[in-house]
């Protein structure tokens, strides 16, 4: 036994003396940090995993440390990481929050990398939103258009055709909201929206109605345009839906999606991410997906990929390699298939996606319709103050619903408050 141990020890000593050996070669590999809220998301999470695998295969000795942070805690965590001087090298942020980071100078100007690599961003959906102070500080990873999903069985039972406009939609929502088991509590809802949670999601839900009514938060110059007849009409529609409880109250977006997938909600306006949830729901065979009854559909930029500016040059090169893989034609095509979403690249091949996602053409159409109409969830001129603006809109809308206020007065209040926020 002693001899055996001695042999092992001698072998270990010999190994350490070999040229090029370092105390823990494996542990000394380069690590690139990547934080994302999409890690465990079915579809898009798989796509990120494929990008990482390809990156690690192309860069031996480099490992991507991929960490999940919940969406609810994402802004806090990223702020803390950046403020503490330890940002993740690969920066993944929502398109409504990257502006604060860019404004601090924490995101690298990507133009030299784009130029050097020859990445063609012409026609790249939503890329214009990544310009900050005239420089591209990120690459848009998703620009989407909303789809309209409905429970065919529920609608047929009530003799309702899928709605084609607001009037048909609200009539259907009224008819479909009911107490099915007679306990005095409505348990089937015409539609479903998040009415509890953050301002950003609330704003998105509300915009389904304001856009169809022709309203916009700001014009193309960034001037606040809330106090308009179109916006007042949009707010009145939202009030109608929520105050009359045609949507379940006080639920998060995830909960309403699950309720729809399980057959407790009849109609749902949502992004491409609804489909994977439907596929796992109890009512998946009853659900049909068509174009939204509203025009233009809600759409917009979703999330971005960027590079932390305060990292060594070697790491920057690696991060760009990662971005280059994610934006390559191959991986953009895979994005369509794996994530069931519209890839921003105009060169992505979507043939495979059409097999996995039967309504893929519709996703492309709605994204294009939203893009053509210049729709985005982040109002121009309020990018930096987006969180505060969204919170204000949420509170004033809640006030309108709780205190039964006139949408005209509410629009005037919102206009004044939005202008004040913009001037800060």
């Amino acid at each position: 036994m002693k001899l055996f141990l001695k042999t092992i020890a001698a072998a270990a000593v010999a190994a350490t003396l070999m040229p090029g050996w370092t105390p823990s070669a494996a542990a000394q590999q380069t690590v690139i940090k990547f934080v994302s809220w999409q890690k465990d998301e079915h579809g898009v999470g798989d796509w990120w995993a494929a990008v990482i695998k390809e990156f690690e295969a192309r860069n031996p000795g480099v490992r991507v440390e991929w960490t999940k942070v919940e969406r609810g805690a994402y802004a806090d965590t990223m702020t803390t990481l950046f403020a503490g001087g330890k940002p993740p090298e690969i920066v993944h942020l929502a398109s409504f929050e990257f502006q604060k980071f860019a404004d601090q100078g924490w995101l690298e100007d990507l133009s030299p990398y784009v130029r050097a690599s020859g990445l063609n961003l012409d026609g790249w959906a939503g890329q214009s939103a990544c310009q900050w102070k005239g420089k591209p500080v990120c690459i848009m990873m998703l620009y989407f258009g909303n789809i309209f999903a409905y429970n065919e069985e529920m609608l047929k039972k009530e003799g309702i055709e899928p709605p084609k406009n607001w009037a048909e939609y609200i009539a259907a929502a009224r008819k479909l909201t009911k107490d099915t088991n007679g306990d005095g509590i409505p348990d089937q809802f015409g539609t479903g929206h998040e009415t509890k949670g953050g301002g950003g999601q609330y704003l998105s839900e509300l915009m389904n109605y304001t856009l169809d009514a022709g309203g916009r938060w700001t014009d193309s110059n960034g001037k606040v345009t809330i106090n308009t007849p179109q916006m007042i009409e949009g707010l009145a529609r939202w009030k109608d839906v929520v105050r009359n409880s045609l949507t379940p109250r006080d639920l998060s977006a995830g909960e309403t999606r699950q309720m729809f997938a399980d057959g407790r909600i009849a109609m749902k306006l949502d992004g491409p991410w609804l489909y994977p949830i439907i596929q796992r729901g109890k009512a998946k065979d009853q659900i049909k997906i068509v174009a939204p009854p509203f025009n233009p559909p809600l759409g917009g930029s979703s999330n971005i990929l960027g590079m932390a500016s305060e990292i060594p040059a070697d790491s920057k090169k690696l991060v760009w390699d990662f971005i280059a893989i994610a934006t390559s034609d191959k991986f953009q095509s895979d994005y369509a298939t794996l994530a069931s979403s519209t890839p921003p690249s105009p060169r992505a091949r979507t043939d495979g996606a059409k097999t996995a996602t039967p309504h893929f053409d519709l996703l492309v159409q709605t994204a294009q319709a939203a893009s053509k109409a210049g729709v985005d969830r982040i109002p121009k001129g309020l990018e930096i103050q987006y969180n505060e603006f969204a919170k204000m809109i949420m509170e004033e809308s809640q006030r309108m619903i709780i205190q039964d206020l006139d949408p005209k007065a509410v629009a005037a209040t919102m206009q004044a408050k939005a202008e004040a926020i913009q001037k800060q």
Partner: protein
Amino acid sequence: MAGGRFSLDLARPSRQHWLGYILLAPAVLLIAAIIVYPLIVSIDLSFQNVGIARLDQPRRPFTTGNYERLFASPDFWNACWVTLKLILVVTSACFLLGLGTALLVNNRFKGRSVARLLVAMPWAVPEVIAVVIFAWIFDSSFGLMNWIFLSLGLIDKTINWFSDPNAAFAVVATTMIWKGYPFVSIMSLAGLQSIPEDYYAAARVDGANALQRLRYITLPCLMPVIGVTTVLVMLWIFRDFSIIYVLTGGGPLKATQTLSIMTYEQAFSFFRMGYASAIGVVTLVICVIAAKLTMRRAPDNL
């Protein structure tokens, strides 16, 4: 080196207290690093116009703007009012429930150990889990509470618990009471067990009834415990974040926005860390004053 120039003879009576300081030093240094340093940074930030704070950034010019804006803000006074309301409601209810259950489980009866366990159980449940349970109970569409109220005929239509400012406040307060009363109960039980039985025996000989024994023996003897517990419960309400944030996020219409929620929102949603630090500093000052007043007055009253 014994008897050398720098030797430290701790055996000398005049230097015996040095040992205490030496032993305490590591803990004091650790506390200074963890609490005092961030506190100083926070106070410093509150006097600067800072968006996102970084320690390596050059210091911005001194300003009292954050405090001026804070005291002129209706949101700040609303948050103070909400915090005060929560303190009054939650502390009172915690004491009624906590003291009541402590008196109950202090008696000898069959199953007392199980009863004590049940009383203390909410204290052991992590806050986030408690919040999830209460969020389900008070769900506006499918919650248990609406079903019970409707079944009992107390309401004729469902209450939107999280869309109505008063209802949302009630939900937050109820959750905090459920989570907070076991602490009062445990502390009171410990206090009750330290009251000598002789006092009660003597009172009984003098013909004191149960209420009189409670009024003249139990409560006065419990006062030191009640004083400390009040301060701790109050400070817990001041700093509690997760219950309110997960249940209501401070809404609707800021009906449940306490000072801690406001601090978080300003720092991490609106990225105004200088302003958020000012709220934090003012909250600290209020806490210190409230704790000082409570500690000084509570044992002498009642």
